[in-house]
């Protein structure tokens, strides 16, 4: 059931979701996005610049987090704006499990005139908040 503007209130929570991230996901994202920075696929390069291991692309984390909102509202085309700060890296171990990004969301504001709501997201991986000020404005029917 897609939410409508009138059915949504400030303070509503979107059900939290854990999204798995494995090395293969980073390789696939590198190819699809064209971002071949070696810190996202080479432990040798990642550790040489002081990272614990290969880390996820910030833009992969950003793209993953907004799925919570687009899966909730049912139309990825309804996203009017979306901004984040990258606060911590997401190290991804080279094993079969990888890691996970757990995303939660809360309706923070409603704009009656535009019929949009702002959802504030949290994104946590291995205990760290990996996104800051993550805000999605979405138009609802």
């Amino acid at each position, binding site marked *: 059931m897609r939410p409508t503007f009138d059915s949504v209130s400030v303070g509503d929570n979107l059900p939290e979701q854990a*999204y798995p991230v494995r090395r293969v*996901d980073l390789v*696939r*994202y590198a*190819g*699809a*996005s*064209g*971002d071949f920075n070696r810190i996202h696929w080479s432990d040798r390069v990642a550790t040489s*610049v002081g990272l614990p291991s290969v880390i996820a692309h*910030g*833009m*992969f984390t*950003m*793209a*993953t987090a*907004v*799925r919570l909102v*687009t*899966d909730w509202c049912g*139309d*990825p*085309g309804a*996203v*009017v*704006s*979306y*901004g*984040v*700060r*990258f606060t911590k890296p997401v190290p991804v171990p080279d094993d079969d499990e990888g890691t996970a990004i757990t995303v939660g969301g809360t309706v923070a504001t409603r704009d009656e005139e535009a019929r949009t709501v702002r959802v504030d997201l949290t994104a946590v991986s291995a205990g760290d908040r990996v996104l800051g000020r993550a805000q*999605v404005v979405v138009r609802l029917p």
Partner: protein
Amino acid sequence: MAVNPDIVGRVYPPAAVYEVGREKIREFAEAIGSQDPVHTDPEAARALGHRDVIATPTFAVIVAQRAEAQVINDPEAGIDFSRVVHGEERFTHHRPIVAGDRLVATLHVDAVKAVGGHAMVTTRVEIGTEPVAPAGAGEPVSTVVSTLVVRGE
């Protein structure tokens, strides 16, 4: 070498036209784990009022980063890419990106700030459809604001 503050206000010429294909939209959606049929099935997209399959909300980064490469590679800007960390990203969508769009991206340098030994470079990429000859204007599609942190030595 420090980032050159004189690049603020600079506008780089539009990058080559980016033609948005259905399969690229699908590939990117699969790469971020989305299974929404609006990215793969034109009928599902039309049912929501879109002309064809639409891109995921961060797809515009592909187009934006091609434009941003101009300032990163500009020797006058003085950006050492090996010291660059992504600080912030913000998309404003004037409408969704749809398969078949022919997009042009214009890069603006909005700010260069020194913060605690680092330099923060804020760029804005205005993405619109290719202007129609001879005098037509393109349609605005997305604005992508990105802040890169260039770590001090």
